[in-house]
């Protein structure tokens, strides 16, 4: 049987710098204790969630742990441009040696979605942030060239 951790990262009465520092120390303790994964919530403009950008916090988690898996619970998908999210996920995946567990949702509170001028009804239908055809085409063209260059770069002479 495996065990995980869920964290709202809700605010307490500590100064924020110390709050984040102590929480990262606690996450190191989860790893030492043998937990399987750490899951952090995404909330906005509320003391319930001090990881409004889960990727930023999880980048620190990636550097403070070696074995623990981790991820958002969940990325509020309608609030991201798909390309931005794709790039963040790719970075976290590489920075952690493949320990990121992705999770997506519509957002627990419609009020938080509205803070971003996103209509919660559109978010529910999945229509709010679908990449345009032009965007998809650019991602395909540029991303393919970037990840698999057609020609290997020429070796450089040592400086």
């Amino acid at each position: 049987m495996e065990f995980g951790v869920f964290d709202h990262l809700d605010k307490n009465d500590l100064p924020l710098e110390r709050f984040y520092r102590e929480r990262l120390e606690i996450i190191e303790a989860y790893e030492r204790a043998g937990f399987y994964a750490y899951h952090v919530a995404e909330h906005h403009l509320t003391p319930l969630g001090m990881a409004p950008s889960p990727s930023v916090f999880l980048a620190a988690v990636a550097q403070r742990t070696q074995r623990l898996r981790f991820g958002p619970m969940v990325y509020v998908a309608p609030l991201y441009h798909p390309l931005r999210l794709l790039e963040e996920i790719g970075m976290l995946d590489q920075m952690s040696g493949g320990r990121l567990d992705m999770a997506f949702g519509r957002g627990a509170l419609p009020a938080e979605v509205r803070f971003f001028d996103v209509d919660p009804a559109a978010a529910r239908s999945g229509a709010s942030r679908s990449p345009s055809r032009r965007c998809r085409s650019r991602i395909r063209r540029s991303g393919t060239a970037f990840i698999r260059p057609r020609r290997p770069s020429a070796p450089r002479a040592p400086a």
Partner: protein
Amino acid sequence: MNVVGLDTVAELRPGIDRFRAVWKEARGDAPLPKIGLGRFVVVGKSAGEARAAARRAYKRWYESFSFLSSLMGFGHRHSRPAEFDAIAEDGRAFAGAPEGAAEYVQKQLAATGANYFVGQFAFGNLTQEETLHSIGLFANEVMTMLRRAPARAASA
């Protein structure tokens, strides 16, 4: 695809049963993904010590939980009671000694059909020392007891 639910046994059980049935239809005997069950947990050397910390910390957590809904006047889709004793009573939280914690986790997993227990150990104004103490007891005693216990049918 792994999932984690935070709701009550009655709310989660039908969805988990359906998930398991569809998995069986589609994948046969392939190992199930993680079906997670999230719960507030505070473990102490004594039940009294754990309960006192949990009551105090949950009150602070609830202030954060209800901040936007109070300010803007709406209700939560996944509501929580204002007091720790009430959420412990409905099964979504536990505070107590290690033996009680192991029994609680085992019963909750069996009742929901989940196979992955997800603890919310740091919340409200629990101090770092209180949290680390609780995590240490959970890892050293509760996890050990649960791994030795015979698996229940629903948690296969």
